[in-house]
């Protein structure tokens, strides 16, 4: 095996590639070759290094623990000459790598503005390994958990460990993972399916993508462990069709797993067999709902099924089926390696472990982070997001995606955990945080969300199909200066009916943000209706022409 004195990791997640990362990679390799260093320095692609919102390419240098950003093709020669040849760090481009873990006590202390409060378990390898190289994953203790499970643990013990961890589903519903596995295991085969829900479609959510692009094996290992635990035989990764890079990296990872005997027949020489393949979606948010996803794999319209029966007893092709989210599976290797009790020690009661969040909106730093449960929402915005940009006032935060909740500034001290958020009728949801500053119009935001749901409603049930269209229509009237006072009552009535009587969670949660907006930002709606005025001057009131 070749030893290199230096590894240069080029961030090649989707956003970095857009910014020119592949060109930088080629330029680095060429300059290193010209400098005669190709036997000493290795250039590899990796996942996001956390700078990708700035439309810039970042590279990480090991063992020097330096990140250079922005790196252009034109600055590559300087980096190679100064740093790789002469050993002098290019200060103008350098950033230290911060991996400090922060305790709850430290977090609540005064001078916390500059502390990085992330705890990277899921993103541990992202930005550190070549996601297309299984050997690098193995070198980073990859598949150790699988070995441990297959040789030292029974499937029931694996389930017990996951139950002890108190891991809850990370797709949005938060159902206890160990319990779901426990329901699935006793249902008889001979065929049992395990499906990874990688149909990340919740607006404002891009955290699963980080794992699939940056560390696909972690998710796959989690899936294999789950399949072993529940007695599964066949699996699918249902991934949205638009995630081309994720599909490519996952396919490479699966191919390598088959080659290494980690998938297919007699995994690691045991009796355990698991066939896994990828299934692309085709553009339907509703397929993030597990029964709609199952129908989609069966070649049907992605409409949800009635429950019960639940997928663990009758799922894909009426066989027992386990469906979990990407992030949920990605948590499993660490739980098995370190034990359920270790995982339980992270987070707070009822919300254990870490959660990935996608930060965006009117905030200084945007991207994906990993935070232990129990961190206040406001801390995430301030410490990792570095606060509202342009020094503006924070108006509100949409937490958990378009089907999530709307928090006012006073509520941002609430810790991110299921129980605490439930008290303010909120939840972590998919893990999306959209920050809105004072220049935003809540009516406009609600209208945009309503347009999304009108487009994505599958149409099967009347309350959602008709309700989403009506809500959209009424908000259009309000936003255009044609609103009537009764429109607000109608919005509340329709929202209530959708929440009560929609067939599936899409319809039940579609009006969530609106309902909270009507409560917490009611005056803005009244201003639009009665005063014919958009206080934020966003809505084009009295705009009669076709937009």
């Amino acid at each position: 095996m070749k030893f290199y004195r230096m590894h240069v990791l080029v961030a090649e997640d989707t956003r970095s590639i857009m910014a020119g990362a592949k060109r930088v990679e080629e330029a680095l390799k060429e300059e290193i070759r010209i400098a005669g260093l190709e036997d000493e320095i290795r250039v590899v692609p990796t996942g996001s290094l956390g700078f990708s919102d700035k439309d810039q390419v970042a590279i990480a240098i090991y063992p020097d623990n330096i990140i250079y950003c922005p790196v252009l093709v034109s600055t590559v020669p300087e980096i190679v000459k100064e740093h790789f040849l002469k050993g002098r760090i290019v200060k103008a481009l350098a950033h230290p790598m911060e991996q400090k873990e922060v305790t709850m006590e430290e977090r609540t202390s005064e001078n916390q503005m500059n502390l990085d409060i992330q705890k990277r378990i899921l993103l541990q390898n992202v930005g550190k390994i070549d996601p297309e190289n299984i050997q690098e994953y193995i070198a980073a203790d990859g598949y150790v958990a699988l070995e441990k499970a297959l040789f030292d643990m029974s499937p029931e013990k694996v389930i017990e460990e996951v139950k002890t961890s108190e891991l809850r589903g990370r797709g949005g519903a938060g159902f206890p993972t160990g319990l779901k596995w426990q329901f699935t295991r006793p249902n008889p085969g001979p065929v049992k399916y395990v499906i990874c829900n990688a149909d990340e479609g919740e607006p404002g959510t891009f955290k699963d993508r980080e794992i699939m692009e940056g560390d696909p094996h972690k998710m796959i290992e989690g899936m294999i462990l789950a399949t072993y635990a529940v007695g599964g035989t066949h699996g699918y990764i249902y991934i949205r069709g638009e995630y081309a890079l994720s599909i490519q990296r996952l396919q490479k990872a699966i191919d390598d797993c088959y080659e290494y005997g980690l998938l297919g027949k007699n995994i690691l020489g045991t009796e355990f067999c698991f066939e896994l393949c990828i299934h692309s979606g085709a553009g339907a948010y509703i397929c993030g709902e597990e029964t709609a996803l199952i129908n989609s794999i069966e070649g049907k319209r992605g409409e949800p099924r009635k429950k019960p029966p639940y997928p663990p007893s009758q799922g894909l092709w009426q066989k027992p089926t386990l469906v979990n989210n990407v992030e949920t599976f990605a948590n499993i290797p660490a739980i098995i390696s370190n034990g359920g009790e270790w995982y339980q020690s992270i987070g707070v009661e009822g919300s254990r472990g870490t959660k990935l969040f996608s930060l965006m909106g009117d905030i200084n730093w945007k991207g994906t982070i990993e935070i232990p449960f129990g961190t206040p929402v406001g801390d995430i915005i301030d410490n990792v997001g570095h606060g509202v940009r342009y020094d503006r006032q924070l108006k509100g935060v949409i937490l958990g995606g378009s089907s999530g909740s709307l928090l006012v500034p006073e509520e941002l001290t609430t810790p991110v955990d299921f129980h605490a958020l439930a008290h303010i009728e909120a939840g972590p949801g998919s893990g999306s945080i959209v920050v809105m500053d004072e220049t935003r119009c809540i009516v406009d935001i609600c209208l945009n969300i309503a347009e999304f749901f009108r487009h994505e409603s599958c149409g099967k049930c009347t309350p959602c199909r008709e309700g989403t269209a009506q809500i959209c229509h009424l908000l259009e009237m309000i936003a255009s200066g044609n609103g009537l006072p009764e429109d607000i009552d109608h919005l509340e009535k329709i929202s209530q009916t959708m929440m009560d009587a929609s067939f599936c969670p899409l319809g039940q949660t579609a009006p969530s943000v609106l309902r909270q907006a009507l409560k917490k930002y009611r005056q803005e709606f009244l201003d639009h209706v009665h005063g014919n005025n958009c206080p934020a001057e966003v809505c084009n009131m009295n705009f009669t022409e076709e937009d």
Partner: protein
Amino acid sequence: MENKTVNIKINGNDYSIDSCATILEACRQAGISIPTLCYMENICDEGSCGICVVEVAKSHTLQRACITQVYDGMEIQTNTSRVRQARKTILELILANHPQDCLNCAASEICELRKISYDLGIDETPFEPTKELDLPLDTSSPSIVRDLNKCILCRRCVKECELVQSVNVIEIAGRGINSKVSCFMDKGLGETYCTNCGQCIKVCPVGALTEKNDVDRVWDYLSDPKKHVVIQTAPAVRVALGEEFGMPIGSLVTGKMAAGIRRLGFDGVFDTNFAADLTILEEGTEFIGRLTKVLSGEHAHLPLITSCSPGWIKFIEHFFPKCLPNVSSCKSPQQMFGTVTKTYYAKQKNLDPRDVICVSVMPCTAKKYECLRPEMDDAFDHWKDQLMLKDEDHFQDVDVAITTRELGRMMKEVGIDFEHLPEESFDSPLGESTGAAVIFGATGGVMEAALRTVYEVVTGKPLPKVELEVVRGMKGIRTADIPMVSVDGKEITAKVAIASGLGNARVLLEEVSNGNSPYHFIEIMACPGGCLNGGGQPINNDPSVCEKRAAAIYSQDEALTIRKSHENPEIKKIYEDYFEKPNSHLAHELLHTSYVERDLYELEKEEN
């Protein structure tokens, strides 16, 4: 299967209910009615509309009564304000996108949306429409009209076409508020492999699906003094027409029907059953011919399959075209009647066939398609040279087929007090028929009628009992062995099968297609239960409708003196005077037809 019961509470009261029951069924057992709209037993339990929601303790959302199974300890509230508000809002949402033209709507009397809105106290909706209600009517089919603006997306039609009829010609296309019931590539129904059975019309709760209205055409013919307009009435009409006037299901109204039709102004009030007897003679002979060949080691296409159901014929043309040689070449009674009217009858009455109009009233929507088939103009061909007819003189054997429902509308239009009409008879010479003919209206009837004749011809003796109960009943597929000893002493067991509903037909045809059908003779009717449940019958979702109408048909059979087709004196006469014998050259020319191999997927194809 376990017959466990569970203990539940409904509106505070305790009940012990079958553990397999849904909340809806449980409430029905408890005498509590839950309003429903999209739900239809055995057809549709998609849970789309949400009208049937109830409150269930410990569930944070309301639960659909139609699809939620009860469990031990379940506590249900059926009429809380939360439930009532949800139902009302759902209806108001539906009404916002529903045309408000009940006055003009063909379904206004039976519209379930109108009824439930009334029951729930909704007379208007506070919401504005969110889609343009300007989709053009689909009038491409000669049998069925689709008005998608009225569709409430209950999916009953899709489920009926899929689960019962196995035709699968319609499906929900698009998504969300843009969803609509569509054919492949959004073609018109008439451009697809729709069989025209009209079962979708029967399940539609509103006026989105109706039969093609040909009433005005009939009025036009009746008003034309130059035309000699006769009408033929199918057997299933006389056991259902009364329902259009509020009479009980299964009222036998043969005499009143004849009287009422006469008062509409027809020149001849005849009975399709006459031609049904004719069909038996032709088809029975055909069957005996094929059976004899096979028994003597020669090749013939068996099983022979009946051909009087045009929905079934279109089905086999699309789905099993290679099995067409198994289908009897006999026309249906409707078509035989039309040909006979414009040849034999016209001759008798010394009428120019161009002035003879044959109207049929049928329980069937597919008959509208059948009478337009290019093959169905044998009378014109027959007269072409004799009368030196030109292309512009062209006429079909049957000019227009109307449904039982349309006939009811015509009578109401002229103010006929149907219930108090006297009992009248059909006219001659095409009005005499037998019990064998009337039972055509029930599934198994054609088989029984055929066997009454075939048995006697083969064995030289009548059936031990004229009622062949072994082929009767409402089960979707029935089979029977009919042992016979031929006149020359051969022992023959005729294996027969009967299917009603195209899903059941498919099962039998798979066997025929694979070459392993054990039967000699198969009767197939497109509509579940047979013609008495046809797409053109009064719409009545009472589960006992088929049994009651069948009982009326069999009672009519019993009441008739002549119960075998070959004993019908007018049939004997027509053979003596005109056709000479069954399957004669002239009979083949006028009473037999051919079929068309149709691709399922090629939507436009020239017909032979």
